């Protein structure tokens, strides 16, 4: 919490200023009823019109001052709160950019999105709304009490009764509704989930003729939510009427006791009116403060969630000694062109907190001009293995070397510049075909883009798209088919012309013909680069120079297709499972 509040620091001058303004504003607010009392006592009761006008002018001046202070305070608070939000949001975003895949997965992308957007927004609003209240409510309360005491001391005792009474009412309602609000959120989530499932599965629902069952499933969730919401609203219905009642009855009671005080000559009449005004002001502040208090738990929860992200230490970081100045020299021509010899030396990987390693004891060398294929069943660690190359994760055991240098000693930017990755989920950014293709190489010429598209077997459909290279791509690439998305992702990596290619199950959405054509073209294109291909289909990889067979995180066979067919049981089993029928056919 305090960690997050650090981001308020740059605004301390403005906020101090705001506090002063709020103080002046509160004091003038309190001064008005006092002036009103004097109009009654000194003016009306004496029948002195001059005094009435004179005090009236003073009131006008105070009113002007009040308005000026408030507006300036609003201006400064808005700027500070929004500035705070801006800085905090940037800090979170920048932090997430520096996190490795491991941390992102642990939080989950949707959660990180909520934290960067919703939670920061929540805190920003808390600062905006809360700051005014947090300062003015105590000033108004304390000031109100002092002024009330000035008007009449014994009568001020009423405040001691009224304020706790209000707090009690609000407290009771809150205690009952707070858990209900949480419950309601869960029920909303449940209802949303049912609807989401029904929309996604509409074909299945209709095919299985389960519309009625689905309707009752929905209605159950609907009724459940309605009942909870009703309980909350009915309970909340108590709050405002009872608070108003307490305020009004307080005024009545003060009139009664005040009348006796006045009758006994202990207090002038005008003071009673002023006193009631002060009490009302105190009560209003208390009510506002209560409303604000409701925001506090939410803001604290948000602050904690934001703080968790900010406190996260990226598990993958560039080499300490080389970070900084040398990063800037990354692109310098002085850097020798890397060869691209990738060596896994007894590599192991365990997810943080997991018991069993995903990979263990993996050792092999991949050389430029060679294709290394990795095959194995789901969960055998194929993706993890190749993700270690651009350091999306770091090996937890052993070492990964490129050209004999531990990847952890290569500046991150340089390392990732060497590697062209086509991830398992072919993710495209919103923009155009061209902006996506240029993602790894901003200055790529159009001819280069077309060349890459040609190799990736994407030239055909891109040239048919309206605008061709300038055709719009929706966020996540949802406006092109899965196969097209994969081919564009492949082309994106090709444009980059890296030394090392990593295709992580990148051909799965392609039909056999396209797959075959693409691989043939790829072979020519990548030349003497080092190529890694993760695949499910044997047909995709059987021409590879080296096939690494993984089973439960361990290498159970390395060799060519022919070698493995004689030596590796797991490989043979995989081949059999895929081609058993074709062999017979």
């Amino acid at each position: 919490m305090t960690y997050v509040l650090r981001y308020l620091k740059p605004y301390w001058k403005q906020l101090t200023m705001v506090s002063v303004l709020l103080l002046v504003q509160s004091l003038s607010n309190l001064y008005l009823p006092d002036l009103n009392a004097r109009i009654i006592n000194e003016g009306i009761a004496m029948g002195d019109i001059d005094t009435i006008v004179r005090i009236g002018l003073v009131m006008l001046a105070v009113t002007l001052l009040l308005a000026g202070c408030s507006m300036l305070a609003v201006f400064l608070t808005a700027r500070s709160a929004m500035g705070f939000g801006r800085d905090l949001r940037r800090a979170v975003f920048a932090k997430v950019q520096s996190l490795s895949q491991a941390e992102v997965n642990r939080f989950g992308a949707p959660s990180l999105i909520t934290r960067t957007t919703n939670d920061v927004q929540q805190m920003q609003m808390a600062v905006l709304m809360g700051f005014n209240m947090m300062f003015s409510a105590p000033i108004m309360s304390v000031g109100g009490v002092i002024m009330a005491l000035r008007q009449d001391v014994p009568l001020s005792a009423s405040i001691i009764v009224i304020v706790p009474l209000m707090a009690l009412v609000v407290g009771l309602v809150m205690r009952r509704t707070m858990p209900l609000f949480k419950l309601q959120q869960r029920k909303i989530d449940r209802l949303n989930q049912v609807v989401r499932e029904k929309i996604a599965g509409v074909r299945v629902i209709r095919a299985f003729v389960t519309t009625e069952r689905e309707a009752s499933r929905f209605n159950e969730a609907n009724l459940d939510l309605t009942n909870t919401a009703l309980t909350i609203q009915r309970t909340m219905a108590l709050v405002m009427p009872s608070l108003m009642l307490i305020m009004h009855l307080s005024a009545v009671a003060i009139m009664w006791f005040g009348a006796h005080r006045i009758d006994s000559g202990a207090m002038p009449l005008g003071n009673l009116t002023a006193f009631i005004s002060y009490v009302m002001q105190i009560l209003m502040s208390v009510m506002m403060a209560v409303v604000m208090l409701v925001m506090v738990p939410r803001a604290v929860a948000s602050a904690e969630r934001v703080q968790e992200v900010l406190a996260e230490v990226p598990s993958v970081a560039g080499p300490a000694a080389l970070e900084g100045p040398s990063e800037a020299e990354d692109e310098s021509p002085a850097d020798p062109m890397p060869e691209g010899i990738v060596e896994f030396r007894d590599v192991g990987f365990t997810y943080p907190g997991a018991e069993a390693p995903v990979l263990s004891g993996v050792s092999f060398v991949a050389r430029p001009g060679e294709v290394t294929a990795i095959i194995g069943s789901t969960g055998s660690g194929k993706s993890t293995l190749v993700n270690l190359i651009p350091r999306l994760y770091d090996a937890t055991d052993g070492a990964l070397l490129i050209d004999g240098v531990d990847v952890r000693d290569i500046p991150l930017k340089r390392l990732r510049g060497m590697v062209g990755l086509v991830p398992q989920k072919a993710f495209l950014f919103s923009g155009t075909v061209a902006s996506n293709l240029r993602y790894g190489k901003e200055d790529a010429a159009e001819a280069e883009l077309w060349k890459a598209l040609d190799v990736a077997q994407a030239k055909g459909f891109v040239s048919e798209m309206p605008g061709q290279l300038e055709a719009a791509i929706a966020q996540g690439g949802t406006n092109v088919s899965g196969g097209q998305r994969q081919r564009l992702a492949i082309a994106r990596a090709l444009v980059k012309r890296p030394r090392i290619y990593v295709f992580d199950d990148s051909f799965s959405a392609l039909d056999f013909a396209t797959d075959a054509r693409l691989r043939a073209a790829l072979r020519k294109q990548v030349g003497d680069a080092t190529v890694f291909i993760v695949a499910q289909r044997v047909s995709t990889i059987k021409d590879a120079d080296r096939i690494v067979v993984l089973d439960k995180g361990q290498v159970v066979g390395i060799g060519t297709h022919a070698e493995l067919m004689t030596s590796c049981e797991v490989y043979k089993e995989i081949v059999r499972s895929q081609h058993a029928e074709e062999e017979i056919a």
Partner: protein
Amino acid sequence: MSGGSERVPRLAATGPEPGQGRGPRFGRGPGRGGFHGPPGMMPAERARDFKGSLRRLLRLLAPYRLATLMVVALALGSVVFSIVGPRILGNATNLLFEGIIGKQFPAGLSVEQVDRMLRAAGRQELADMLGRMNVVPGRGVDFAAIRSVLLAAAMLYVLSAAFSWAQHYIMAGVSQRLVYRLRRDVDAKLARVPLKYYDSNTRGEILSRVTNDIDNIASTLQQITTQLITAAVTVVGVLYMMLSISPLLTLMALATLPLSLIVTLGIAGRSQRQFAAQWESTGKLNGHIEEMYTGHTVVQAFNGQEKALRAFDDENARLYAAASRAHFISGIIMPAMHFINNLNYVGVCVIGGIRVARGLITLGDVQAFIQYARQFSQPISQTASIMNVLQSTVASAERVFEVLDEAEETPDPAQPVRLPRVAGRVEFRNVSFRYKPDVPLIENLNLVAEPGQTVAIVGPTGAGKTTLVNLLMRFYDVDDGAITIDGVDIRAMSRDGLRSLFGMVLQDTWLFEGTIRENIAYGCRDDRCPPGEEEILAAARAARVDHFVRALPEGYDTRIGDDASTISQGQRQLITIARAFLADPQILILDEATSSVDTRTELLIQQAMAELMKRRTSFVIAHRLSTIRNADVIVVMNQGRIIEHGNHESLMAAKGFYYDLYNSQFSKAFAEAV
């Protein structure tokens, strides 16, 4: 349907996470999940037909006419009582004042004598004031009278509070029931709209109408109705009271009304524009955040962090500029209103004071008047902010009504043909179909699948192989010709009756949040629901589900769902096969997956599917060579159209598209394999 990952637009759907959702609200602004500002700061979402949609929304209140009338009556009572209150308290002040003045004069004197005394002493004004009062010289404060006045006021306040509570209580019931029905109606409607609706709208779009929009209505409806009623009654009541106290002071108070209206509307209009800008920036920024986070792998692998940060900073700066302007402008509404109110206050104090001193009005009345003047301006500024909320509520309602107004599927025939048991002869007779009227797709197709035969549908990626499925299941209706099952036109049957004949295993493995057992049981037919444990186990065994489920710690009670990672994609597919086994249909629709299924599970899926297809008429969206070669009929599709059909030999002999496809796709890939 592409296998693309589902994405729900609007972040409201991804967040907020449980535990930090909507907080309690004290009758404040609307919330759409996440990013809402303070009250009245919704983006200016405007309804297309504001009046029409508002009227329709109000018509939804019709079933609750009685309750709504009660609410109005209670609001009326509550407001009237609370309005009379200050007037009565004013009387108490008068009594007090009279008592104190009266005490200053010796007892026994008549009022006339006091008046003469004062005028003699040159205290003209005081004498005037006394003239209006009921002063008994020498008598002190009349506590008995004050007590009864105060008790009356207290009673009124209690009644007012009780009425106000009852009003909120009843309205909560009305609005929640209304929203409940709205949700139910929309859900029922979604079951009746043709599949076309789902195919032409994104999931997120439909989802947000059922959830976000209705939630928005739910959370604002009560607030709007109670506040609008109260505001209207208050304005009228207070105006009456003010006029009855002093027309002159009323005029004075009303003089500032146009001023406050101009200020409120002027500022509100300006801030609306800034909020719209803020909203736009927020949307863009959140879109960017979402995109960069979901594409984190790519961003990192391509060294895109700095680029991402640059784009973020640009939009973040724009957001800051718009947001601080918006909050400043909207923030000065309150101080401005305060200022105008205080002008009023000072004016009433001074003029009222002078008039009291001249004996034209009593002190208590002035006091009451001051309170009324405050009450008067409050509902006006309140209404301004309520109008914003109303805008967004009506816009939401309109989107919900749009769903309710969607065209429905053509009704089933009144006397549908029932086929409890079929042989499974499926015939396409002169079938023509197009999704878009001007794009011909299937023209004059004739095709027969005899009972037990297999029809393989082949073609390159994106050839529109699901079209035939859509027609068979009547997700879409043919434009011309007919599809018959055992000679019966499928349009002569009820849709449910027709679909009961089919079993469907799609690549898009749809499982719902629940246990594995429940998901398999989903396949049961109406007459055998819920299925017995034996049936479920038998289906599970036949679908090769049993062995891996038993390996799970919770077995068949393992919970799976939308995105659950407890079981693999291949295993999910096996469960959908088990579902089909349980349904035991005569006709099958299968989709052979090509997506990431590991090789061993793939083998199991093949076995299970082969088993399922035995003795059943099957339509298979085929990717495997063996399935295709062994099929009785092969339907070759390209670019959405059926271009050839026949069996393997005849198609090969024709040397057409299939011949090329076969040679390029399969012969090379597999002749070399192994």
